């Protein structure tokens, strides 16, 4: 079961994804973002699986000039970034939170 919980503080939206980060998760997150939000902090500690819908959503978010922080993304996330050849355009040191 994938669930998404969100907490908004000003322009920052903190999101916790449990289960999958897929098409449905993307739509749930989009429904909770308003134009004022420019920073996403996404906790993926309990996210087991991400697919291209999730990765492309994150990529587009960054390309639009927004900020992004990911907490413990699953290993498959890095495999997908590499397969789609997007890793070179991501500043992973900055995006992946300690």
């Amino acid at each position, binding site marked *: 079961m994938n669930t998404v919980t969100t907490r908004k503080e000003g322009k920052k939206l903190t999101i916790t994804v449990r289960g*999958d980060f897929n098409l*449905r998760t993307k739509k749930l997150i989009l429904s909770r973002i308003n134009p004022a939000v420019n920073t996403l902090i996404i906790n993926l500690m309990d996210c087991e*699986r991400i697919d291209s819908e999730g990765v492309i959503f994150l*990529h587009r978010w960054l390309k639009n000039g927004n900020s992004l922080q990911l907490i413990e993304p699953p290993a*498959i996330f890095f495999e997908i970034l590499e397969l*789609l050849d997007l890793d070179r355009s991501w500043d992973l040191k900055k995006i992946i939170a300690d």
Partner: protein
Amino acid sequence: MSMDATFHISTDEKIINPVCDFTHSWGVNCGLTKGDALRFSVAVSELITDIILFAFPDDSKQTLEIKFFHTFDYVEIVVCELGEPFDPDLHTYDSQKAINDNNFDGAGFLLIKSFCDDFSFINKGKEGKEFRLAKYVQIHEIDELLQQSAEQRESELQSDENQDSTVNLKEFSVTRIRTTDAVDIAKIFYRTYGYTYNNEDIYLPKKIESSVLAKDKLGVIARKKDGEAIGYFAVIPKNNSRIAKVAEAVVSPGYRRNGVMSSMMEHLIEIAKSRQLNMLLGEAVTIHPVSQKVNNKYGYTTTALQLASTVNVKYKGFDEDYPQPVSVALDFLPILPTDKNTVFLPDKYSDIILETYDKLGIDVNPDAGSNRHLAETSDIDLEINYSSSSSLIVVKRYGSDFFNVLSDIVSSLEEKSPNTLLLDLPLENRSTPDQFKTIAALNFIYCGVLPHYHFNADFLRLQKVYSDIDFSIIDIYSDFGNKIKSLIADEYRNNP
């Protein structure tokens, strides 16, 4: 191949997660590593997402079908849907377009191909689209053992034929296997083959127990008077017909030439009768005649020769690998008398088919068939065997779209560079002679007759072979088997 589950699910994004979770757990249960099961489940996520987005862009109330299959060495998921046409080959991912133009077209299919070992797209025309995702179970060490197994079993068979037993067995019993025999069965295989037999399940008593319990496997075990197990022989019923395949025959080397195998075969035939099975089937490799000789001794008839049926393996007697994929003789033994059915025979093969029925002792009413109104759509099943790179197409019903659908399926399969394609046509369908003429352009050649093979009905098997075949090293034992071989060899040589 076992089918483990079929889901009919709505084209709703809510189902992506539960289907992926199921795929992951099922994959692990079938032997995938957790990492491979996760990757495979991501591939499934990508496929369902693409179907929802592109085949049913505005409708979440349609359904798609997902079937889960597994064999010893791979898992396969087949997804069928009837949505808007789209072709994965037309969506190629380009990372420059993704980065520069925000165009991610083809990303999902790239991940599917990356996370599966085999991905096939079959366009079935009006029957919709079919996607097949397969992942190999990592069994590298077992692969090596399989080669040893082939050599060792060949030598065991030869010695069984040529040598006297070391022990003169005065008394032994043969009984039907029960779940409590599982450990002894595993032990017989271990004592005979070490850990080199090609079906790993046979070493796992729990697997044997569950197969016996589920009646997936019937069989007999031979024991000495003191209870020691010395032989085992199984019959594995086929899912969609009242026939069964004989398999997993073993007698401990020290107790051969005592009639143990004969006694077990006789018991198996009795089991087949008690189960009301119509037919037993033996699949005999043609690198040597030993298995065919054993089958022939018990009255089996070779009815078909399936070319290039298994991948190359090393066999004793050849300095190098057997130089071509191994062909298999299909030997059938009728068990119960059957009704006299009408069979509709293509002119071209009428004689050889009738001779096959005669050899089997099956009485039929031959008919040339007739033109009749066809259904709007055809009903065709497809099975892909990834380890041997072969596919089986089974025609269940002819529709007016038959040639187009079959051509589309064949074209899709040919893109995967197969070893063989098999095509089963229903002999009890009055349209078969006519439809046979329409598919001449597809260049299938004869394979043989499969009595009671699908849905308790007889089928004509045709084959299309993509490897170079040297017929001189295909060893067929019976005269009639050799007649079938000659016919096939002629067609193979004359086929453009």
